[in-house]
C-alpha cells in the first residue's frame, strides 16, 4: 500500500483500522476535499458521539482535551489562544478520544485504549491529511508549507504524515527551485533585494 507507520504511530494493523475510521467519518460527513472542517464535525456530531459538544475557551492549559460529564454528555474543550492549525490538529485528536469512549467503540471492543495519545495523533493526521488527498496534493504542490496551507495543519504534521506515508519530504532548496520554475525567476528574490 506504500504506507507504513513511523515509530510515532500505532502498529500497522491497528493503524489500518484507525485510518479506516477516518475515511468512514469523511464519507459520512460528505467531505471530499481539504481542508477537513473538524470544528464543524464536532459541532454537528454524529449520533455515535452521544451528546458530544465543543466548548471553546481561553484557558491556556491544553490545546484541546476530551471530558465526559456526570450527566452523560461529552465535551471537547479547545483553547482559542492556540494557533488555528494547532487547534484543528488537537480537536481531531480529541475526536478520536471521544470515539474511543463512545458506545460504538465499546461494541466493537475498539483496541486502542492503551495507546490513546499515539493513536489519537495518528488519527488526526489521517483525518486532516487523508493519504489519497496527500498523494494528489504532492503532485501539485512542492513545499511543506504549501501542503500545510492546503490542509490547514501545522507544518510538523505535514512532515510526519509524509514520513509515515513513505513520501519524500521536499527540501527547502527543492521547493524554492520548483517554485521558481513555476512562477518565473523574479519570484525568488529575497525581500529587500530590490
Amino acid at each position, binding site marked *: 500500500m506504500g504506507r507504513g507507520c513511523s515509530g510515532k504511530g500505532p502498529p500497522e*494493523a491497528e493503524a489500518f483500522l484507525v485510518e*479506516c*475510521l477516518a*475515511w*468512514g467519518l469523511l*464519507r459520512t460527513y460528505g467531505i471530499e476535499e481539504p481542508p477537513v472542517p473538524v470544528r464543524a464535525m464536532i459541532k454537528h456530531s454524529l449520533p455515535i458521539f452521544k451528546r458530544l459538544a465543543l466548548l471553546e475557551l481561553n484557558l491556556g492549559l491544553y490545546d484541546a482535551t476530551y471530558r465526559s460529564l456526570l450527566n452523560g454528555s461529552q465535551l471537547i474543550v479547545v483553547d482559542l489562544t492556540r494557533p488555528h492549525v494547532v487547534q484543528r490538529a488537537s480537536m481531531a485528536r480529541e475526536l478520536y478520544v471521544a470515539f474511543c469512549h463512545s458506545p*460504538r467503540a465499546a461494541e*466493537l471492543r475498539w483496541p486502542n485504549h492503551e495507546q490513546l495519545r499515539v493513536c489519537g495523533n495518528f488519527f488526526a493526521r489521517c483525518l486532516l491529511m487523508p493519504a*489519497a488527498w496527500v498523494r494528489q496534493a504532492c503532485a501539485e504542490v512542492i513545499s511543506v508549507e504549501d501542503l500545510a496551507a492546503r490542509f490547514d495543519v501545522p507544518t510538523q504534521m505535514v512532515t510526519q504524515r509524509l514520513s509515515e506515508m513513505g513520501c519524500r519530504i521536499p527540501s527547502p532548496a527543492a521547493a524554492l527551485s520548483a517554485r521558481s520554475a513555476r512562477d518565473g525567476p523574479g519570484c525568488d528574490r529575497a525581500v529587500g533585494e530590490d
Partner: protein
Amino acid sequence: MSATALQTLIGTALIDREFCEELLNGRRPALLTEFDLTEEEREVVLAIKADSIQEFAVGLYEWLMA
C-alpha cells in the same frame, strides 16, 4: 484509489452499526455498489468470511499487504 475505497467501506461499518450488520450478512453485494471498488476488490470483499468487522478488516488488510 483502491485502498481508499476499501478503507472507506470498513470505516463506514465502524461508524454505522446497521451498515456493519448488513455488510457481514446477506446484503453485502448491494452495499458494495455504493463504493468505487475494482472487480478484483469486489470479489475479495464478497469472499471474506467474518463474524466481526475487525475480522473483516484483518482479511482485507492481509490481502492488501500480500
